[in-house]
């Protein structure tokens, strides 16, 4: 089973590496420029000292993964490779988890590269001879939230991609889902009465960073498990072929 997951992962990784061509690589460079150079330069020492950076590192892999995961099944269907893959000896879970893992690895690896680049830039420009590092709880939080953010996007993406008949359709659905995920809490908060907003803001400020990380991680773990379970339930060879 693990060997088969690795095999699917290998194939997906090969495809991701050649997919998108120059435009795809330019997009990654742009992302590295913003999150690895521009924002760290602008934020200065705050880039490593403010726990607010956790929001960036949850969002970046979410965005990165969504750009490749839509292709997972909808792309195979569109390019007529899905039926041949399903006619192989691979198990349903190996196909599903291999694709999931490759998308997560892609999002996390680029996010971590940007993170390292940002750290180097901040130290070079604002270090003043001192080694600037993230506090331990924030560092652990970044690792956990990038992984879980990528997992959330990959789980939702697999589910959407299983249902979509084209990559474009999958990308559109996934984009809407991510926008809702980002904007509903923001606009929901704005819509609350002022008293409630004040109360919630006080509660949030008083929460310890570690507690926020733990709560966010638990929430994301639950969402990841739920989405993967839904995708596993949805993955039926006969249904995929007839779709």
């Amino acid at each position, binding site marked *: 089973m693990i*060997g*088969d997951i690795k*095999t699917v992962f*290998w*194939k997906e990784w*090969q*495809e991701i590496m*050649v*997919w998108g061509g120059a435009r795809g690589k330019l997009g990654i460079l742009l992302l590295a420029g913003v999150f690895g150079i521009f924002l760290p330069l602008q934020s200065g020492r705050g880039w490593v000292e403010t726990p607010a950076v956790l929001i960036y590192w949850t969002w970046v892999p979410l965005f990165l993964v969504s750009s490749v995961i839509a292709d997972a099944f909808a792309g195979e269907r569109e*390019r*007529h*490779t899905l*039926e*041949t*893959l*399903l*006619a*192989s*000896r*691979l*198990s349903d879970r190996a196909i599903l988890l291999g694709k999931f893992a490759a998308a997560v690895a892609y999002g996390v690896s680029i996010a971590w590269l940007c993170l390292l680049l940002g750290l180097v830039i901040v130290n070079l420009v604002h270090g003043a001879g001192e080694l600037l590092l993230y506090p331990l709880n924030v560092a652990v939080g970044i690792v956990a939230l990038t992984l879980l953010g990528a997992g959330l996007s990959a789980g939702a993406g697999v589910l959407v991609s299983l249902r979509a008949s084209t990559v474009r359709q999958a990308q559109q659905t996934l984009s809407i889902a991510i926008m809702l995920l980002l904007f509903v809490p923001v606009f929901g908060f704005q819509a609350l009465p002022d008293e409630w907003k004040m109360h919630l803001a006080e509660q949030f400020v008083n929460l310890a960073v570690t507690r926020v990380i733990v709560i966010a991680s638990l929430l994301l773990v639950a969402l990841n498990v739920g989405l993967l379970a839904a995708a596993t339930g949805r993955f039926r*060879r*006969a249904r995929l*072929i*007839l779709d």
Partner: protein
Amino acid sequence: MTHYAIRTNDLSRHFGAVHAVERLTLEVPGGIVFGFLGPNGAGKTTTIRLLLGLLEPTAGRAEVLGFDTRTQADEIRHYAGALLEHAGLYERLSAEHNLEFYGRISHLPNADRQARIEELLTHLDLWERRKETVGTWSRGMKQKLAIARTLLHRPQLIFLDEPTAGLDPIAAAALRDDLAGLAAREGVTVFLTTHNLAEAEKLCQQVGVIRQGHLIAVGSPEALRAQRGTPRVEIRGRGFSQPLLDALCARPEVLGVDQRPDHLALQLREGAETAALVSLIVGAGAQVEEVRRENASLEEVFLALMEQER
């Protein structure tokens, strides 16, 4: 005892009111090329999907390589290979990576995998181009690569769903030769669907004809031709007069006479002697240059079957 690669018993698959496959009972012996013939929408692809365990039958059962398609589909897919309606190649990847992926899926050890990839690509004249992205290749080359992928893990049985469809005649003939050569060399059972009857006649030891989900004939091409078609004689020459044509029509072994500008085509009853007819023609003063006797082609048999079932 005959070893059967495929056995089905009253196998049916319905999609709502559409009966894609209906009570299909079929036995395909191991080691042969079996042609599954039928017009578009006859149920050929659905049959392959049922045999690979990709679809559940509505009724009946099927065994492939001794495994039940309902309960042992994983085993079937392990020991069989399939080239389906589409080549199923990853066009962004190189030919080598495409085979590497399917070799890994089949758990071929690394050294064996590399050797097997080289062996198959060399045999198909693709080895020098193995690093190229498949998307840049012609359809004929892609089909060759797909056949290499199908045979990579040395399956006991391969399903080929119209492998030469969409190819130009030269590429189709080349692919047919490659396919025949590889199948014979590997000793693999081939279940081939096609509506190219010349292809089936060249490649297949046995054929089955399916129409609207029903199997309407099965046997060797020769047997089908003998059962369904009547022998014909084509006589090239000059001086075929009307009295001669009347005399030929009056003969009990002659079913029909067709006069063309430079030859006569006689439709004969099964077992009719040609020599007596040639004597009659020569005796009537006609000049005979060539006499050719032939049975009905598989295409004629097929068309007759389709017409009969209409």
